[in-house]
């Protein structure tokens, strides 16, 4: 975990090797969510609301165990429940902890026009800085997971921070700390990916789910929240997890490349007009007030 940036390279008057020299630091963090062992207890939901000190929000009952239909500006962590009838007639009760995925290539950050409103730390956490947010909500349309939520009162957008305040102090996120089954884990991306792969193999080989696998979508460069799913070929079953999340081209091709070029081309009209005046001169009302003797060159 990023618990400091002071790593010793040389030591004066020191015999022998330098302790810690040549150590490679794996800085990227990851949240591991094993959907197959989640019991839907919602302890993570409560822990999130508590740690982030968010005001109470009215919940909505829609004939499921789900707290509300989707995450909201003050409710960043939601277990999504889905009753899935399988082909053999049995029922599968799927529950997935929904929150910001902390994409390696974040669509929200790509879409945001406000300087400094969204940052991505070197450890992979994508964090909103509300003091710089202008409330345009482009982030929401850039996000493939429908995560950023607008507060109409403050005119700012909010989402899961992966507890960047806790992680910065070497602690795990609040949801991880609260999880009673150990289906949530937190560590380096490398470790969590390895753990997820071995758990997925276990589910495939010993629990009768041949399509079990790890959800870490490459279309957005991977995510810093990964899932172990019973059936990784149908992520949509788990409360609408997209199988191929994409950032709209408006925020990649258009915003990054075409927009600045198009603006420069457009502004070219100003020097063009100026030099037209210099080269061709004005169209005077005819005949001009100061009479002739003009010779055109």
């Amino acid at each position: 975990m990023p618990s400091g940036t002071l790593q010793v390279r040389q030591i004066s008057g020191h015999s022998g090797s330098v302790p810690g020299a040549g150590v490679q630091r794996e800085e990227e963090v990851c949240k591991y969510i094993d959907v197959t062992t989640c019991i839907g207890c919602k302890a993570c939901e409560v822990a999130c609301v508590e740690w982030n000190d968010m005001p109470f929000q009215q919940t909505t009952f829609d004939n499921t165990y789900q707290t509300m239909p989707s995450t909201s500006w003050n409710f960043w962590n939601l277990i999504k429940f889905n009753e899935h009838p399988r082909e053999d007639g049995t029922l599968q009760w799927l529950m997935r902890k929904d929150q910001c995925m902390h994409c390696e290539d974040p669509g929200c950050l790509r879409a945001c026009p406000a300087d400094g409103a969204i940052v991505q730390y070197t450890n992979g956490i994508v964090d909103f800085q509300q003091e710089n947010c202008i409330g345009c909500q482009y982030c929401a349309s850039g996000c493939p997971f429908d995560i950023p939520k607008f507060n109409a009162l403050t005119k700012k957008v909010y989402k899961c921070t992966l507890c960047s305040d806790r992680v910065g102090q070497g602690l795990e996120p609040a949801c991880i700390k609260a999880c009673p089954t150990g289906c949530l884990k937190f560590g380096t991306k490398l470790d969590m990916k390895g753990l997820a792969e071995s758990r997925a193999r276990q589910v495939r080989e010993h629990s009768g789910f041949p399509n079990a696998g790890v959800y870490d979508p490459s279309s957005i460069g991977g995510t810093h929240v990964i899932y172990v799913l019973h059936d990784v070929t149908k992520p949509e079953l788990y409360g609408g997890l997209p199988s191929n999340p994409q950032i709209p081209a408006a925020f990649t091709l258009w915003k990054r490349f075409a927009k600045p070029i198009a603006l420069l081309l457009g502004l070219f009209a100003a020097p063009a007009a100026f030099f037209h005046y210099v080269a061709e001169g004005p169209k005077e009302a005819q005949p001009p007030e100061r009479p002739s003797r003009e010779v055109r060159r």
Partner: protein
Amino acid sequence: MSTAVERFDEGARERFGAHARTIVHDDELLRHPVYTRILHWSVAGFFILALLSGFAIYTPWLYRVLTPIFGGGPMTRLLHPWFSLGFVACFVFQLLNWLQPMTWTRDDTRWMRRIREYVANTERREPDYVDFFNGGQKLYFWAIVGSAMLFLVTGIPMWFPRTFGRSMVSIGYVLHDIAALVMLVGFIVHVYEGTAAMPGTLHSMTRGTVEKRWAWTHHPAWYRRATGRDARADYDDAVRQQAARTSGADRGPGS
């Protein structure tokens, strides 16, 4: 172009005119009554505010430069749609007011075919068929109509993204930008043509009048309608009078 619209505009022009002072000298013509002038500058004011607040959010290069004008990023975002609504609301009245003189005719297509000569500034006077507005002015006007509709159709989903959804916003975002670029280029050309490129034109939009010389030079067909006189004949007269005033050594303006 219903008669109700014409009656409404005529009434508005009269009511505004009754409260205004537009002085027309004998060598001048009234080009824009005060109703038109007030509409024009209301549209222009909202347009510039919307343009600046929009381009503040358009690219990170301009964000730090332009957002302080409006009191910071959040305020810029808050105000932009209202500036735009002001622009659209005022422009609707200008659209009604100018529907008749802005109607595209075959003469405008003819004018467009010779736009190269117009830009190169090779002819002293516009062709005799050019009426109250020339083809270029009409093109700019209808480009504003088109862009304003595009702005509105794409801007409202961007204003209320939760209602309209993610894909509407991301498509609208690109179209909104394209409309803005068209308007930016059109605006730069419009300001140039209305000021430096054609002396006397700005005055028609500030105090309402133009010299007769200006009218027969740039809008001969309108000159004929407004005065009942032939633009070419009056121009030739003026040239002859000028030649008589100056001494015989003068060659007089060639073609």
